[in-house]
């Protein structure tokens, strides 16, 4: 008879104890899995929505005339382009996809345009993402739809702006917004044309609102960025995103209270079951020890049982928890795209590791206490 053999026979003999113990693990694991699976899905959905909406953060120089900025969408003051690096390399930030631009209204060939210099999009170290926007090579010009229409420009045309030669690399499709009146080029060249070397006037970024800890997301972000760049101010495109973030924050706070209570309750439950099981098995421990089984071999029986309970509980709990996430996740987390919920395999691995360890610890202690007595003493206990 192997240890597993003995463990399985005992489990079968005391089915109710086994089922109750598994139930305890299932409850804890299922709660955990359901919450995190739905939470992850919600995060993914928010991130996707945010990307769909484009850059939602605008960081501009401190002395920018806000009235002007809000009216025209253009910041009249500039700031050093090193700010981009500073922002990108700060620790513990929640934004990504940083894009530095220098924009200014000019009249070109009799048409009012916004000359826009674009730096390549930057991601914080270790959080590289595919860029959301093209990067423009030196000498290339991306012409907005309206400008191209007004001046009859087409791809391949050679043009010059203030004495600088460009090739029209792309005529952009109609956007219905300010992009239609832009002439976009490399940041370096825009700086030269505008006589503003090393300057930018806006940094755009995408804030996923993932790390929001509580409170108003914008003021948190302002505080965060204020520490990094005291010389800047921050505007966030308020959107449903904020509501979503608040919603998620609320659930997360709730979870912060519920989850520890569930884990503690289930831990106690398993512990009590383990103590009861050990009491039930005093005789058996005594017999095994009397027959000459060492303490460690007896302990292995109890650990083996705990591991079996933990594994069963983790697998079942994962299935049930994932099912719950699918069923109730959309309501609780306001997830609209049901398809974005998917089983979180990383969580599965974690529960399959932690549940048995947890169960083992809670049954190991009473078993270890039992084996420290002389077998005769253990056998006496009725």
């Amino acid at each position: 008879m192997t240890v597993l053999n003995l463990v399985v026979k005992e489990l079968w003999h005391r089915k109710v104890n086994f089922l109750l113990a598994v139930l305890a693990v299932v409850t804890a694991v299922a709660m955990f899995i359901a919450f995190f699976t739905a939470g992850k899905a919600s995060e993914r959905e928010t991130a996707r929505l945010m990307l769909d909406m484009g850059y939602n953060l605008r960081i501009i120089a401190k002395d920018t005339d806000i009235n002007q900025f809000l009216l025209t969408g253009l910041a009249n003051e500039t700031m050093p382009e090193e700010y981009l690096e500073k922002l990108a390399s700060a620790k513990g930030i929640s934004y990504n996809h940083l894009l530095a631009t220098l924009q200014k209204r000019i009249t070109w060939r009799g048409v009012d345009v916004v000359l826009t210099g674009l730096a390549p999009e930057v991601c914080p170290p270790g959080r590289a993402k595919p860029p959301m926007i093209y990067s423009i090579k030196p000498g290339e010009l991306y012409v907005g739809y309206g400008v191209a229409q007004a001046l009859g420009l087409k791809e391949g045309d050679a043009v010059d702006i203030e004495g600088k030669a460009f090739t029209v690399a792309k005529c952009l499709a109609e956007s219905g917004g300010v992009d239609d009146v832009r002439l976009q080029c490399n940041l370096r060249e825009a700086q030269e044309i505008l006589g503003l070397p090393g300057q930018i006037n806006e940094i755009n970024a995408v804030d996923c609102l993932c790390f929001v800890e509580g409170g108003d997301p914008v003021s948190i972000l302002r505080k965060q960025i204020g520490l990094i760049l005291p010389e800047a101010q921050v505007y966030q495109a308020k959107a449903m995103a904020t509501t979503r973030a608040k919603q998620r924050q609320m659930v997360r706070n709730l979870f912060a209270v519920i989850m520890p209570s569930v884990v503690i309750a289930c831990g106690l439950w398993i512990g009590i079951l383990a103590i009861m099981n050990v009491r039930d098995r005093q005789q058996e421990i005594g017999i095994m020890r009397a027959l000459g089984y060492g303490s460690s071999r007896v302990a292995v029986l109890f650990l083996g049982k705990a591991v079996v309970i933990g594994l069963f509980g983790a697998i079942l709990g994962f299935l049930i928890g994932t099912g719950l996430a699918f069923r109730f996740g959309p309501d609780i987390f306001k997830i609209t795209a049901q398809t974005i919920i998917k089983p979180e395999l990383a969580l599965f691995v974690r529960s399959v590791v932690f549940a048995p360890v947890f169960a083992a610890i809670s049954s190991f202690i009473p078993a270890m206490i039992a084996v420290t007595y002389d077998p005769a003493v253990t056998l006496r206990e009725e």
Partner: protein
Amino acid sequence: MVVLEGVSKSYPTAQGKVEALHEVTLSMEKGEFVVLCGPSGSGKTTLLMTVAAMLHPTTGSVTVGQRNLYQMSSRARAKFRAERIGFIFQMFHLVPYLNVVENVVLGAQAAGRSGGSVQARQLLERLGLDGRAHHRPSQLSAGEKQRTAIARALFNRPKIILADEPTGNLDGDNATSVLGHLSDFHRNGGTVVLATHGERAEQYADRVVYMSEGEVRS
């Protein structure tokens, strides 16, 4: 071969200490069949347990085959029990979720011997349990349980069998059969120490040791 020197054992209880053994000095020879006779509460079980390496005496030493049992580590004592001792309990003490054969081989596994279910079946046949091999303890009569326990004790080929009122819960025929098997073991060179409060076992004994109130009166 078995030597107890000044062995005392007291149990702490809420009402104060209960002294179960008082300064017991006793030796038994290899191959001897000793019957410990005494009324209930005289300390027989306590004495057997100390000899079986299952209970620390409060004072005194127990030496079995040159080995001072309670100066060994707990692990060494467990190994000693597995290899040397066969114990038969009044209350049988079978593992409830194992069947008869499994109970019988359980002890051998503790000694590191695996398998042996063929020999176990032969032994069960000898004890008249061949039809019961796959029954659980709860499906057995008291006599069958005790014979299973004897099979378990014998199966390990111990040097000593310690039997604590092995016939206490059995009727006449079953009791005779159990004593017969112990006597066989003894005839083949084994040492037997049997505790009883009745007379029946005395006819098998090489020597009867009388106990009362935790003391030996030979």
